[in-house]
């Protein structure tokens, strides 16, 4: 995923990625990433949990506009199924 992201950024489009495997992201080094320690297949969270999905997207937007150092990974501390989202 990070590899595709790097190519797009190289074409002059700013990118942000959502990662669930920090180890891959550290190696591949995409420009901007938010990392969640969540299971495979659930980067935006649980099915039909609209508030959770929106919260993850807002974190990604924040990273897109806020990260100034290339390769930054923002660790989102939300625990799987143990948080409340408004």
């Amino acid at each position, binding site marked *: 995923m*990070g590899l595709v992201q790097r190519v797009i950024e190289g074409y002059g489009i700013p990118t*942000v990625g*959502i990662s669930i495997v920090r180890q891959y992201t550290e190696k591949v080094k995409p420009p901007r990433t938010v990392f969640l320690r969540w299971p495979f297949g659930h980067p935006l969270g649980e099915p039909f949990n609209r508030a959770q999905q929106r919260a993850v997207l807002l974190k990604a937007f924040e990273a897109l506009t806020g990260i100034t150092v290339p390769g930054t990974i923002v660790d989102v501390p939300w625990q799987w199924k143990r948080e409340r989202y408004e």
Partner: protein
Amino acid sequence: MRMRKRHSRLKNKIIAKVITRFPSLAKGLIDAYTPRETEGIPWTPVRKPLSESIVGLVTTAGVHLRSQEPFVMTDPDGDPTYRKIGRDTPSEELMITHDYYDHADADRDINIVLPVERLKEFAREGVIGGVGPSMYSFMGHIVGPHLYTLMNVTAPAAAEGLLKDGVDCVLVTPG
């Protein structure tokens, strides 16, 4: 040969289910597939406020239209091609072909891997300027010679598509 391929797909699907359920078991697999370290980091500054930006969506979750060719699952090196999906495609017309993660939940709600409905909500609310007209969908798990194709042929083609679409920034999601 066909029998062996079928067995290997089944094995991959079982592994995907198990590691989604018990993430601690995934560590060995993650170690085995950790990619080579890359050099340098590409960087394009954000030029527009988010509220004026058209956001493009790219995924490696293996999503495609039911009418499109599924991703190839019998090649252990993966499939480096991508599928272009219209932003307003009804979710019933989408499906996932990807044996390397358990997509049972994503099959119920595609937004957990391809959050297009949520992006459209943010566009209606003025948080973002809009959503790109097309989404570009790859499958992850690409290794060996297909990495060259991904990096030099298919990912650049998707990037050119995104430029033509006029997106200002891109969100990339995994499976």
